[in-house]
């Protein structure tokens, strides 16, 4: 139908074609200027032997695991604390605010807060007698620092949890209270199971965005120090736009897609055991 036509064009032009082309180019020595020579699976072989490929994959997995765990914990806990009626929207706004600004601004703000000498964090840590690390300049602490910063951007998850919590019928809690259930029991037997679909949704979203995490490491650490924050999308970007190894970058892109597919399938499969759907 004619109404769909813009999307038909868009789907093919900006999604299907590049998706297929990416696979195609990965078998060539492509550069910015053209296809280059056909090299078969060589890009993939090189990838398997490339220590930075494995390093970046590991870094991205580590970041995703850390940020999803921290983010889920924070978003859920705070959502449970936010009052359901009066004043709730004020808290919701405050917690959502960091999501509204560009990631590059988030990076600048946190570079400043995490500054070893003039940063706010280290200032207060020193006041408590702790001798704080150099955060972004310390290979052991750079990635943990990035994970901590990701905790600031939990607004999306929190809003969804809030909505999920509001959807839980009050009668369930009343019945539980009449049965003498403790707050903990109410939490684990009612709230969490009823929220499990939202938790699953946020988990998958978190997975997908964690694997695309690029801006903050690009600006805050540029992959360092010592490649400790070289995440997969950053290494991909470098291969494409700094080394001009487009074929290799395309191969990396497809591997990313496959890894993500497998992980998502795994999460969805495991979800059957712990997600409880109303019905």
């Amino acid at each position: 139908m004619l109404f769909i036509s813009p999307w038909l064009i868009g789907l093919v032009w900006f999604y299907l074609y590049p998706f297929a082309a990416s696979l195609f180019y990965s078998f060539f020595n492509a550069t910015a200027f053209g296809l280059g020579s056909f090299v078969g699976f060589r890009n993939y072989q090189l990838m398997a032997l490339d220590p930075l490929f494995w390093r970046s994959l590991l870094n991205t997995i580590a970041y995703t695991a850390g940020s999803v765990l921290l983010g889920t914990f924070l978003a859920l806990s705070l959502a449970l604390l936010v009052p359901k009626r009066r004043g709730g929207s004020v808290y919701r706004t405050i917690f959502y605010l960091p999501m509204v600004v560009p990631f590059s601004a988030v990076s600048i703000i946190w570079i400043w807060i995490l500054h070893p000498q003039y940063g706010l964090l280290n200032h207060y840590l020193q006041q408590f007698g702790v001798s704080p690390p150099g955060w972004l300049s310390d290979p052991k602490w750079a990635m943990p620092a990035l994970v901590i910063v990701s905790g600031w951007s939990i607004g999306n998850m929190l809003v969804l949890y809030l909505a999920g919590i509001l959807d839980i019928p009050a009668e369930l809690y009343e019945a539980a209270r009449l049965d003498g259930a403790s707050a903990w029991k109410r939490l684990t037997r009612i709230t969490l199971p009823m929220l499990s679909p939202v938790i699953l949704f946020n988990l998958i979203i978190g997975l997908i965005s964690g694997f695309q995490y690029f801006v903050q490491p690009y600006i805050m650490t540029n992959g360092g120090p010592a490649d400790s924050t070289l995440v997969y999308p950053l290494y991909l970007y470098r291969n494409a736009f700094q080394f001009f190894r487009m074929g290799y970058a395309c191969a990396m892109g497809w591997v990313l897609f496959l890894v993500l597919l497998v992980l998502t399938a795994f999460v969805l499969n495991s979800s059957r055991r712990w997600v409880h759907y109303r019905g």
Partner: protein
Amino acid sequence: MDRLQHTTRYIVLIGAAILFLVPFLWLISTSLKTNDQIVQGSTSWIPRPLTLQNYANAFTSVPLFEYAKNTLVIAVFSVIGALFSNTLVAYGFSRLEWRSRELFFLVTLATLMLPFQVTMVPLFMMFSRLHWTNTFLPLIVPCFFGNAFYIFLLRQFFLGIPRDLSEAAKLEGASELQILWHIILPLARPALLAVALFQFLFSWNDFLGPLIYLTDQSKFTLALGLANMQSAIGLSDFGAMMAAATVTVAPVIIVFIFTQRYFIAGILASRAKS
């Protein structure tokens, strides 16, 4: 809930809220300090004396005004594109009946799962061949061809509008386009506003797009310009950096605070899918 639990809850909640606001407050506070104060490690929240010098410096050391202008241009045209294309497409997915409509809709949703890194390189190569690199075109044109998230959002909304309204109009001989324009759109204003706001925000905040397509500094957006500034003067002129960051951040925060109702509604609409 007893007194102690109640108080603890609010202490933690308010504490968290303060912690979430601190980075913004610190940003503004630092932007108003002189570089001497900053280097001396001043940790006061309200600087004495207050200075606007950093803002002046920020606007002169980089073409910050250009950046803002560029960002606004890209954002406005992207919003126009998004509103135009997605309303048409969403109408087709919701108010019209055709074979394999639902199947095609699922394919549409699948594109949301596709990471940009997979299509990024071929897209860049294609735009290169078209000689569209170093222009705003790669950032604006795709918005005129639909986006799965907005299609989904608008479709959900359109589905909620009663069929009788369309039926009545059809009896009077109205075409689908007329139905869309005169009946559906006026009723869909909240959803349209949500799409406009989301796209505006996305364009304003977009970093990777401008990064790979724009090479002339004069064409940079605020988000990209900030990063560029950081590598240029970030280690010396902290004050100007903070001022520039504030300039980048303030407009979207203000827009958000006044329109949050629509944002939240948009986010909540997206959860119905999974």
